[in-house]
């Protein structure tokens, strides 16, 4: 059994409360913009780009100011990491699902949640590759690629590499997003973020 104080300190070190507040704020902004948009293209743009923000927040919240000290603790970290991520992902999923209701139409159902899940997986993998502080660069760079590639003629919109553009009913896109999320959670739980020296609070 993990002591409640340890859980509390672990979450506090990762600014979990602020991260959850950011997630709710981003979801509220997304809901507001979706309600404001009466243009189909703009709605799609919101559903593709704005889930990057919760993913970036989750990635950035991986960072701990204690680094090696924490790794040497007698308690195993994976259960704490898993609980922390599960909590943030649950908050993000519920908030994005609620925000998605502002985009009416079969073509938009669950797109925020699906895309957010895939991007979050990328952010978690990014945390292992480049460190938590810069983990958000991976999903944001990918999101920019998704927006720009079809316009530049580099890839067709139907390409599996551009799964965030695919309609919600398309199963391969949903499976891809889920696979990315599971891979990210597994990597972040087992290995944690890469330790890099930085001074950000």
């Amino acid at each position, binding site marked *: 059994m993990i002591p409640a104080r340890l859980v509390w300190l672990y979450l506090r070190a990762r600014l979990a409360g602020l991260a959850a507040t950011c997630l709710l704020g981003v979801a509220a902004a997304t809901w507001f913009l979706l309600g404001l948009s009466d243009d189909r293209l*703009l709605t799609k743009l919101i559903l593709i*780009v704005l889930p990057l923000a919760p993913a970036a*927040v989750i990635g*950035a919240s991986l*960072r701990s100011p204690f680094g090696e000290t924490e790794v040497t603790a007698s308690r195993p970290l994976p259960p704490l990491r898993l609980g922390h991520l599960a909590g943030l992902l649950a908050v993000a999923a519920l908030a994005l699902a609620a925000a998605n209701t502002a985009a009416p139409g079969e073509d938009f159902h669950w797109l925020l949640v699906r895309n957010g899940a895939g991007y979050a997986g990328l952010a978690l993998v990014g945390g292992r590759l480049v460190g938590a*502080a810069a983990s*958000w660069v991976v999903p944001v760079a990918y999101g920019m690629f998704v927006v720009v590639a079809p316009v530049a003629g580099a890839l067709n919109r139907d390409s599996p590499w551009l799964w965030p553009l695919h309609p919600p009913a398309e199963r391969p896109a949903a499976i891809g997003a889920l696979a990315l999320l599971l891979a990210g959670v597994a990597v972040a739980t087992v290995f944690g973020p890469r330790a890099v020296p930085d001074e950000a609070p």
Partner: protein
Amino acid sequence: MGLVAIPTHAALGFALGRYFPSRFTAPLVTVALFFGQLFVGAQNAWYAFLSPMVSLNTSVWYGVRPDLTLQQVFFLLGLIGLLLASLPLRDQRNRAAGGASCLAAALVTVAGVAIIWHDAPPRGGQDLSRDERFRNRQVIPYQPVCRDAPMPVCVHPAYQPYLDETTAVINRLVAPVVGLPGVPTRAEQGYPAITGNTDATTLWFDIQPQAQYWEQLLTTSVLYPLTTQVVFMPADGNSRSGSVRNPCPSSNPGSCADAQQVIMRWLLRQTGLADDRYQVGPRFTDPAYDRITPTVERFAALDPAQQQKWLRAHFADLRAGKVRLEDLP
């Protein structure tokens, strides 16, 4: 403008990072800026020009329209100044100097916004109306590049890479009729409103290259307009729509003489590109298409010498719409 937008975004991120130091500031500002410039740039309003991602109307003939680059750069530089000048405001000792710098930069930014508001078309760049598009606009002077062939072909120098292929395809198309009375003697990219050339000896076409659709575009923007000009009548001298206007006497292609359509489809087949149903366009899916198909096949099966003989004797009448379907061999 994109080059100036990068330091502007960096300045904004830096300033916000100073005011709200947190691990979440950088990612949230990045996503917000990325989305914000897409969102603003997609609006059909003057303020779309505050974003570097605004849609612009571009062409080799008229350049970038509306060209507000200087105004946009002015606005962005003002914004950089404003953001950086705001940083000393946090420090009590520098507050006076920071305030003065901030005020100066704010004036530049507001002036930039005001100039953009004044100069930008009200509905943004992509949505320029026909009048706005052509008002007070001079064609950028250019010297066409040409390729010699039985039917010489000229294009804008920007399209020189497409000249050889275009010349080959056009000459395959017109080979059976080149030299016949009334048939134009050269083909040029553009349209009379651009070149100022309204003589009937020139065929007009446009090229809209997009790599993956090159063959389709060649068909729709080059071959179809050319074939209609060859078979029906010369291009309309007043056309300035970017691609040559369909000179068919009526908007309903079925109203054009069936015999003309037969020869048109037969000519299109000479290019060997796509099947002629696609080449003459989806609008030609009317009953006339199936009605004339046997005649197209019959004419195509003739000996080339017989085809030439018939064309020499009847092409002028065919262009004038005086040949009936049953008159074709």
